[in-house]
C-alpha cells in the first residue's frame, strides 16, 4: 500500500509545513470568512474597513430592579457588499464594559497573548452577541460586589487601539431602581 508520506508529498521532520506545526500561517481561521477576510486586508484600507463596521449596544428595557441580571445585545454590522476585516490588538476581538470597567472587573481577568489578530466580517454580515451583566463588579480574584441603585453605562467596542475614535464603540445607559 502506497501511503502519502511515501510519496514525499510530506516532510517527516520539523519544517514550516509539517502537519501539527503550530505556525500561524497554517492555523485554521476562526473569524469571518477565512481567506476572503485575509484577502480583504490587502484590498480594503483599514480606515475604510473601520467606517464599514457599525457597533450598537441595546437593552430591552431602560430600568431594571436591583438584583436582576441585565441582558444586553451587542450588534456589529458590515455595511459593505464585500468582506472587511479589522485588525485587533490581541486575540480578544471585542470587549464590553460597565462604566468603563472592562467586563465589569476591577481586577485584570487575564493576560491575553501579546499578538494581534483580525476580526473578519463577510459582505453585509451582522454579528449579534447576547450578554448579561449580573449587576456586580468583580473586585478581587475571588470576590464580587453588587451595585446599588443608580444609572450605569454599558458599552461595547472592538478591541482596537482607539475604539471610540474609530467609530467601533457604542454604549447605552440603564437605570437600576429599588423594587
Amino acid at each position: 500500500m502506497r501511503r502519502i508520506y511515501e510519496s514525499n508529498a510530506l516532510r517527516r521532520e520539523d519544517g514550516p509545513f509539517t502537519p501539527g506545526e503550530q505556525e500561524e500561517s497554517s492555523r485554521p481561521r476562526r473569524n469571518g470568512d477565512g481567506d476572503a477576510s485575509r484577502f480583504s486586508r490587502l484590498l480594503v484600507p483599514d480606515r475604510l474597513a473601520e467606517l464599514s463596521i457599525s457597533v450598537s449596544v441595546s437593552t430591552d428595557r431602560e430600568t431594571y430592579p436591583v438584583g436582576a441580571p441585565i441582558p444586553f445585545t451587542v450588534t456589529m454590522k458590515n455595511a459593505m457588499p464585500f468582506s472587511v476585516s479589522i485588525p485587533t490588538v490581541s486575540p480578544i476581538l471585542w470587549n464590553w464594559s460597565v462604566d468603563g470597567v472592562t467586563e465589569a472587573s476591577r481586577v485584570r481577568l487575564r493576560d491575553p497573548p501579546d499578538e494581534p489578530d483580525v476580526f473578519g466580517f463577510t459582505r453585509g454580515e451582522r454579528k449579534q452577541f447576547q450578554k448579561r451583566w449580573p449587576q456586580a463588579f468583580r473586585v478581587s480574584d475571588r470576590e464580587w460586589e453588587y451595585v446599588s441603585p443608580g444609572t450605569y453605562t454599558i458599552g461595547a467596542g472592538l478591541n482596537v487601539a482607539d475604539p471610540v475614535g474609530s467609530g467601533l464603540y457604542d454604549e447605552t445607559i440603564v437605570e437600576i431602581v429599588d423594587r
Partner: protein
Amino acid sequence: MTLLEVNDLTVRFYTQEGVVTAVDDLSYRIDPGEKFGVVGESGAGKSVTALSLMRLIDNPGRIESGEIMFKGQNLLELSESEIRSIRGNEISMIFQDAQTALNPVYTVGEQISEAIRHHLDYDNEEAKARTIQLLDQVGIPEPETRYSDYPHEFSGGMQQRAVIAMALSCDPDLLLCDEPTTALDVTIETQILDLIESLADETDTAVQLITHDLGVIADVCDRVMVMYAGKPVEKAPVEELYYDPKHPYTVGLMSSIPRVGDRRDRLQTIPGTMPDLVELPPGCSFHPRCPFAEEACTRIEPELVTVDGSATTATADTERAAACLEYTGELEDGLDYEVHVTDGHDPISQSNADHRSEEPDNVH
C-alpha cells in the same frame, strides 16, 4: 516518583463570543500504575485537560499558564518534534468515538502498525506481527484476517478495541481514556473497562480515565477529581468520594445515578445546566444550581481547599479537597445532606465526622 504532575494549568479559547476559560487553574498528579478518574458533565473541561497533556490544543485555544511535568520534564517547553516522540509513545490516548478516530481509508492493522513502526523502529514484518498480537490481546477474533479489514468492517465495540490496541501499541506509561465507553452498550462497556484495567495492571500503565459516569469511576479508579465549569471542585480517593462526598455538585451527581429497584417516581437530577463558560456567574460557578447556596455563594468564589478543617489551599499533591465555602467557614447554614448506604435490603447508616450521617448509595 510522580509520573505526571499538572500545576496551575489554564487553557483558554479566544472565540468571537468571548474568551472561554475551558480549564482554570487545575492541579493534580498521577503516580505510575495509578488509575485516576476525571468526572463531570459535558463542558466541564475534562477532554480539554486530556488534550492539553498531549499538546493537542489548536487555535483558537491556548495553554496560557501552568506546567505539565511528565517524568520530570515540562511538556509545555518541548519542541514540536520532541512532543511528537512522546505523543502516542509514552502518553497515548483512547478517544471517545472510535469510528471518528480511525482513518476510514486505511486498514485497521496498518493504522496500528504505523505507530509501532514510527515510534519503535520496527520493520514491516515485525510491526505486523506485533499488531496481530495486540489485536489478539484486546480480544479481536481471527486477528490475522482482521488485520486487513477496514474500520467499517468492524463493529463499534471492535473499533473501540482497535483504538485501545493502537493506544497500547508502544507500551505507554500514561494512557488517557476520554470517555472510552460512551458510544457503547453496557455489556461491551464492561468488557472494554475490564480490558483497560487488566492491560493497565499487566503493564503497570497509569490511566487517566475521563467520564461523566460515576459508576465507571467506582469500578476502575483509585482517585477521582470532579470538575465543574473548567475548575476542579473535589478531589478524593474513590471510596471517600462515594461514602463521604464533600461538594454539593458531587452529591448531585451521585443522587442522579439511576439504580435498579429504586422506588422513587422520578430520577433525581441536578436542576439547570452547566453555565456558559464565556459568562460564568459571579461567586461560585455552581451556586445557581446548588440547593445549599447562600448569599455569600453569589459573591465569593470558593477556593479548592483541604476539608480537614485547616482549609489549606490545595496543591497537586493534595489527596482530599473541595471547593465550597463550607470549608472556609463562609457558609452560615452549612451543607445539609445525608448519604444512605443500602447493602442488599438492609439500609446501613454511617455517621460522618461532623454532625451529619452519611451513606453512599443514595444521596438526598
